[in-house]
């Protein structure tokens, strides 16, 4: 290195070109990775992830590229170009890429965007919606604590005490869960924890009427929009 830098520590013109071109190449590579994920090209995403890791590139940058890919997927979803199956596939590819990156990431302590406790409420055993929400929230940088399905109100209360999250997410597929979500919010309020958290409900059967009845802060039947709401809450803190 010393050889290529002159006494003032300024790189020669040739060196600058080289550095820029390497940087340019790298940027291109990262962009390629983000686009491969966004286009749901599983093989290319995983191959590029491996190649950049093996080339010794910063795992945080690789993680960011994959997150950018997910952001593009979210935009396409919002524009009506992508549907749920594309979200599921993108989340799957993201998960696989993270399995490659994670071992290298361990030393880099990344501060999460925020903490979320999430679960499907008591009486409902469906986890499709919840799993997609979790994948997108994690891709967005949230630390997600998944309570699973058929989660009784007490379990939500205990998790809030333990994790101290900014946000609580309740998921459901069935209409019967509206009553169950109301009871859960009630339990959170009785434990004097309601003031400290924002509550978002998600699922095929939630709407404005349900949201008011449950006394939640937001509702969504759209995982991408749900993540946007959560980000806004965190940003507003």
């Amino acid at each position, binding site marked *: 290195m010393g050889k290529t830098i002159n006494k003032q520590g300024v790189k020669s013109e040739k060196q600058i070109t080289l550095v820029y071109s390497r940087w340019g190449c790298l940027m291109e590579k990262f962009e390629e990775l983000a686009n491969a994920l966004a286009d749901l090209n599983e093989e290319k995403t995983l191959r590029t992830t491996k190649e950049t890791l093996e080339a010794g590139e910063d795992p945080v940058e690789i993680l960011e590229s994959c997150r950018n890919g997910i952001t593009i997927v979210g935009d396409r979803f919002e524009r009506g*170009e992508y549907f749920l199956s594309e979200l599921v596939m993108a989340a799957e590819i993201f998960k696989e890429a993270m399995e490659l990156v994670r071992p290298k990431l361990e030393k880099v302590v990344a501060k999460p965007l925020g903490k979320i406790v999430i679960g499907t409420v008591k009486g409902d055993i469906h986890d499709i919606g919840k799993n997609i929400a979790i994948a997108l929230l994690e891709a967005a940088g949230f630390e997600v604590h998944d309570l699973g399905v058929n989660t009784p109100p007490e379990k939500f209360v205990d998790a809030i005490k333990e994790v101290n999250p900014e946000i609580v997410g309740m998921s459901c597929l069935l209409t019967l869960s509206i009553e169950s979500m109301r009871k859960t919010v009630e339990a959170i309020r009785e434990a004097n924890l309601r003031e400290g958290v924002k509550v978002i409900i998600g699922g095929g059967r939630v709407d404005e009427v349900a949201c008011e009845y449950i006394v939640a802060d937001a509702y969504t039947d759209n995982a991408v929009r749900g993540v946007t709401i959560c980000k806004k809450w965190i940003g507003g803190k």
Partner: protein
Amino acid sequence: MFERKTAEKLYEEKLERLEIATRVEEPDRVPIAVNTIYFPARYAGITYHDMFYDYSKYTEAAVKFAKDFNWDAVGYLRSFESATLGLTLAGYDPALAINVVAASVLAGGGVHDILGDKYSSLPGRELPENVEAQFRIEEPFMSADEYDKLLENPFGFLAETVVPRIYKSLERPGSPEAIGAMIKLGVELGKFPPVLSEFIGKMKQVGCPPWYIALAPNPLDTLGAFLRDFDSLMLDMYRVPDKVKKVCEALTPLLTEVGKATGKISQEATGSRRVFFPIWYNTYLSPKMYKEFHWAYTKRMIDEVVEAGFTPLMCFQGSHDHLLETVLEVPKGKTIAWFDKTDLRKAKEVIGDHACIAGGISPSLLIGGTPQKVEENVKNIMEELKPGGGFIFTLPFNAIGDAKVENVKAMTEAVIKYGRY
């Protein structure tokens, strides 16, 4: 209150009202037809468990509800646990296959107890006695690597490999448990025709036709709901698209037969020609993927079922907004498009002249709303959907278990009040 003759006349009138709406014409008023098993149970004061397990209480509840609410049709179907077992028999004895498929749909929880399937959680069994039944695959019953085996020898693979994975009682073929379960299932199936005809007879006495008792599962949903699972099948569509399509192709004629055969039973026993076509994956797929993996097969089934003289009742779960144009491909005036969360106004614009629309108000309004709000919403829907005919008022599939009685009453009254032509 109901003289036998009047009840029969009432029954015929209701069938006819639904028929006229199906032809996209104007009956005397908009019909109201809903699938709900939990609300009648709560209304009649029995548990959800009884609704699944106690046939006479189930009938009493259905009769009481039908009498008091006087809807044009009610659906009381329960679960689908025996579908895969039935499918296994399709090549060997088609008539028996259909009886087995229909067994759990019509016979309730007994079949679940005998077979020990891993699909369902039922009230008073895996769930508390007043929690609605749920249907979900925890782990796929068939892996992505097994598509080839399924394609090579569908019935053999299903019978020998998949069935033992699904039904706990059949885990070890040839064991006393498995043989016992088969005998018990046979006994249960034997009870089912008289029980069904008694139920239908009682519903006729109170002038209440079924919304449907016949059903036609489609290939993609069958694969996703009974063999793989929701997520796995979505990934399969990207990773092994050709294999998924081949399985759908192979299932199409078999499932069409189920639709036609149950349609015939329905028509003969109840006078209703409607055949229930549940459609689940629509909401999750892009138009391109829906057309390739789902509609290509489902549409063929619909055409054939129409050809055989029946009325496909296409139940588009979730949102069908992005797929409305595809409905224009089915025969005109011969089907009902039952929507869940789709924008009904938009649907009327796009398919209103072509297919009868069935839809209504948000179920959460019946749970958390007030009678005034319910009436207002029904009025609005009627104003926009009623003109020109071809509209049936309904609600999403089994979605009003927790509804308030006064709200359901207000909804019924509002349909009668604002639904007149």
